[in-house]
């Protein structure tokens, strides 16, 4: 199953209410936030509404917010021995 990986590159501050509404519908809150959505015509239409603010790529997998955070965070580097 294909997914859109959508990254908010331009902030929604100063954009129209409609565009901010679309960003909220996509789940994009802050700049550089990443969200995965299935490839469907309605998601594609939302992307087209905010295409100037957003970078999109297609992937085979999707990640939750927790998974993205875990992937990006550095290894702890320590283990408690006793």
């Amino acid at each position, binding site marked *: 199953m294909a997914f859109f990986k959508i990254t908010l590159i331009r902030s929604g501050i100063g954009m129209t209410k409609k565009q901010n509404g679309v960003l909220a519908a996509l789940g994009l809150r802050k700049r550089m936030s990443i969200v995965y959505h299935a490839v469907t015509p309605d998601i594609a239409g939302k992307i087209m509404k905010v295409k100037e603010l957003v970078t999109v790529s297609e992937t085979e*997998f999707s990640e939750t917010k927790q998974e993205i955070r*875990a992937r990006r*965070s550095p290894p702890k580097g320590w283990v408690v021995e006793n």
Partner: protein
Amino acid sequence: MLQRILRPSVLRPVAALLRPATAAFSTASPLRNLAQETVAPATPAAPIATAPIETPAAVEADPSISLLPLLRLQGAHYITVHINGFPFLVTKGDQITLPFRLKGVSAGQTLKLTHASVLGSRDYTLKGNPYINPEIFSCKATVIEETAEPMRIKEKTKRRNRHVKKVRSKHSYTVVRIKELEVLDV
């Protein structure tokens, strides 16, 4: 906006102690990087839930392993350990005040430090890519205490406005001492 920080005159604790100057000189050619095999972050079907785990290549397979005994035989070693992603250049006996609180840890416990990017002695330096094979070294630290910085107060105000907002900060720090640093016989 006017800002004033009120802080006691005691200096804030620094994150790491500096190594003596002798460690900076490396007259011999440094060891080539021990190649680390990196696992591709996420296969399309099953993304992993943790940070990318690097499976180290077999220690015996790397050609630079021939210089490891020379590194091992030199007495004084230093290491750049990475704790929660922060690098600290330390040697045995150093006490470091981490600029954060280690969660799930209490005073007196021993920690095994597993991630290091540089391990060196006077004439030899081993650099990881980005981390050194953990089979090569053993670095242990003891948690000394959980303390906090002195309270600092940031005053925020605007011109021609008598209201002053005071923001108080007192971050927790964990103090740790390096008890053991050994280059193992591989």
